[in-house]
C-alpha cells in the first residue's frame, strides 16, 4: 500500500504543473488569436477587412452553436430562431421604441434569453432526432411569425437601420474601422467567455453529458437543468450575434430566420472543429471565403446559366473535407496539440 502511495506522489505533482501550463497556454492562445485579428485589419485591403468584420459576427453565432452542439452534444436545427430573436429584439426596439443602440442591444439579448428559455424548456422534452425536428419546427414557426407580422418586420424585404441609430457610445459604426473593432471586441468577449465556460466545472459537466449522459446522471448531475442552461447560453450568444449583425451592417430581414441560417452554424462548427474554442472562427472563415471565391469563379468563368454552380463547387469541397478531416480543422490540430481547448 505505502509503495503505491509513493508512486502516486510524483505523478500528482507533475499533473498539477501540467494543468497550470494548460491554463496559461489556453489564455495565451486566445490572446494570440485576437492579436492576429488586430494585425490582419492593418494588413488586409479594405474589402477583406470588411469581410472579416462580418466573419467575426458570424463566428460569434458559430461559437454559440458550438456550446450546444460541440460541448453538450445536442444537435439543433433551429438556431436561426435565436439569431433572429437577437436581430429583431435589437432592430424592432430601434424602429418602434426609439431607443439608443446600447439599450437595443440589451433588448436584443433579453429577447434571445426569453426565446431560448422557452424553446429549451419545450424542445428538451425530446432527445436525438426528435430534438432536431422539434428545433427545426420551432425555427420555421418563428420564421413564419416574422412574415405574418410583416407590417412591423417588413417580412422578407426587411428594414434598414438608419445611420443615426448605429452609434454606440459615440462611435459611428458605419465607419469601417469602428465597425471592425466593435465586431472584434464583441468577438473577443464571447471567445474569452466560451474559453472560461468550457474550462469551468459547469462546462466540464456538459462534456460529461455529451460523452455519456446516463453515467453523468448516475453521478448525481441534473441533466435536464444542465441542458437547459446550455440551450440558454447557446441561444443568447447566437442572439448576441444577431443583434451585432443588425447594428454593424444596418439591416434586419426575415431571411436571417430562414432554415439556411440554422444550417450554416452547423457547417461552420463541423468544418472548424466541434468542441474546440477556436474551431468556430476557423470554420466560419473557411466557409465564408469558400462561397466567396467559388461564386466569383463561377460568375467569371461560367456562362450565366451556371451562376449557381458555386454551390456545387462548395459542396464538393465540403464533402472532401468531411471525408478527410471529419473532426474539422481544429480537430486535426488537436491530434498534434493535445491541450487545445
Amino acid at each position, binding site marked *: 500500500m505505502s509503495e503505491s502511495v509513493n508512486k502516486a506522489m510524483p505523478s500528482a505533482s507533475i499533473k*498539477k504543473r501540467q494543468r497550470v501550463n494548460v491554463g496559461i497556454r489556453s489564455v495565451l492562445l486566445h490572446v494570440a488569436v485576437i492579436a492576429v485579428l488586430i494585425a490582419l485589419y492593418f494588413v488586409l485591403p479594405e474589402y477583406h477587412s470588411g469581410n472579416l468584420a462580418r466573419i467575426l459576427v458570424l463566428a460569434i453565432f458559430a461559437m454559440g452553436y458550438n456550446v450546444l452542439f460541440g460541448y453538450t452534444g445536442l444537435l439543433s436545427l433551429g438556431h436561426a430562431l435565436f439569431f433572429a430573436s437577437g436581430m429583431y429584439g435589437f432592430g424592432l426596439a430601434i424602429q418602434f421604441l426609439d431607443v439608443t443602440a446600447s439599450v437595443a442591444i440589451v433588448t436584443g439579448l433579453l429577447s434571445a434569453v426569453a426565446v431560448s428559455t422557452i424553446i429549451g424548456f419545450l424542445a428538451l422534452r425530446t432527445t436525438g432526432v426528435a430534438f432536431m425536428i422539434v428545433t427545426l419546427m420551432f425555427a420555421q414557426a418563428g420564421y413564419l411569425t416574422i412574415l405574418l407580422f410583416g407590417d412591423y418586420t417588413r417580412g422578407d424585404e426587411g428594414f434598414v437601420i438608419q445611420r443615426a441609430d448605429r452609434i454606440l457610445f459615440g462611435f459611428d459604426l458605419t465607419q469601417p474601422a469602428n465597425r471592425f473593432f466593435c465586431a472584434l471586441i464583441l468577438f473577443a468577449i464571447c471567445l474569452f467567455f466560451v474559453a472560461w465556460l468550457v474550462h469551468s466545472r459547469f462546462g466540464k*459537466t456538459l462534456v460529461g453529458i455529451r*460523452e455519456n449522459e446516463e*453515467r453523468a446522471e448516475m453521478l448525481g448531475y441534473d441533466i435536464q437543468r444542465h441542458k437547459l442552461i446550455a440551450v440558454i447560453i447557446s441561444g443568447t450568444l447566437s442572439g448576441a450575434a444577431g443583434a451585432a449583425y443588425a447594428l454593424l451592417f444596418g439591416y434586419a430581414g426575415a431571411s436571417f430566420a430562414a432554415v439556411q441560417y440554422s444550417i450554416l452554424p452547423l457547417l461552420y462548427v463541423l468544418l472548424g472543429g466541434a468542441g474546440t474554442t477556436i474551431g468556430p472562427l476557423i470554420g466560419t472563415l473557411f466557409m465564408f471565403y469558400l462561397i466567396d471565391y467559388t461564386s466569383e469563379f463561377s460568375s467569371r468563368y461560367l456562362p450565366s446559366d451556371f451562376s449557381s454552380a458555386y454551390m456545387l463547387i462548395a459542396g464538393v469541397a465540403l464533402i472532401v473535407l468531411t471525408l478527410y478531416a471529419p473532426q474539422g480543422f481544429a480537430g486535426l490540430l488537436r491530434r498534434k496539440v493535445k491541450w487545445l481547448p
Partner: protein
Amino acid sequence: MSLVSTHGLSKQYSGLKAVNHVDFELPKGQVRALIGPNGAGKTTFVGMLSGRIKSTSGSVIFKGRDITAYPAHKRMAMGMAYTFQITSVFADLSVEENIALAARRVVKGSSNVNSKVAEVLNKVYLSERYDQIAGDLSYGHQRLLEIGMGLVQSPELFILDEPTQGLSATEIEGFIELVGVLSESTTILLIEHNMDVVMKTAHYITVLNFGETLAEGTPAEIRANPSVQTAYLGAS
C-alpha cells in the same frame, strides 16, 4: 435504523411481475449481497433503489426520507453511488477526468478535487494510468475506474451491479480486498453471481427468485437453506 428500506416495492412490465412486493431493510455499515438466478429481478430492484427504473407500486426510504418520487440524480446527490451491470465510463475522456467529473459534484475547488482524485486513483490501483483514455483500458481496469467514480463521492450507500463480471481471478482477489476497505466507510449493496466473492465479502445475503424474496440470512445460513439450494445453488 436502516439506511435504506423498501416496502411492497413492485415493478410490473405489462403482464410480467419483475419485482413483486419486496420488503427490504439494509442497516448502515453492512455489506449486503443480492443474489438469485438470472431474471430474478435483481437489477430491476436496485434500479428502483437508485431511481433508474420507476417503480409500479411500493416505496423506497433512504436516510429516513421517502424518495420514491425522486429522480435518480437527486438520489445520488443524497449520498448514493451506482455502478452499472455493463461498464459505463466516459470512454473518450482520460482516467483522471472520469474520476474528476464524479468528484466535482461533491468537492469544490480545483485543488481539493485534484487531491481527492489522486487519493482515489491510488485506492483503485489506477495512479499509473491517470492520463490514459478510459476506453483504452482493459475491461477489468474500466470496472475499477467505475468503482473509483463512486468511491470519490464518498457515498453512504454504494450499489454495485455484478462488479466482478468479466474480471480475471487476480482482479477478483483485488476486488475482494477493495470491498473490505470500502466497507469501513460505506454501506454496500452488491449484486453478485460469483459465490466465492459473495461468501468472502457479504455480511448478509438476500436471495431473490421470480421477483420475490426467497430467503435472507448470513452466508452460512443461506448456504444451508434447502430452498435456496434448489432455486439457485443447484443440488450439491
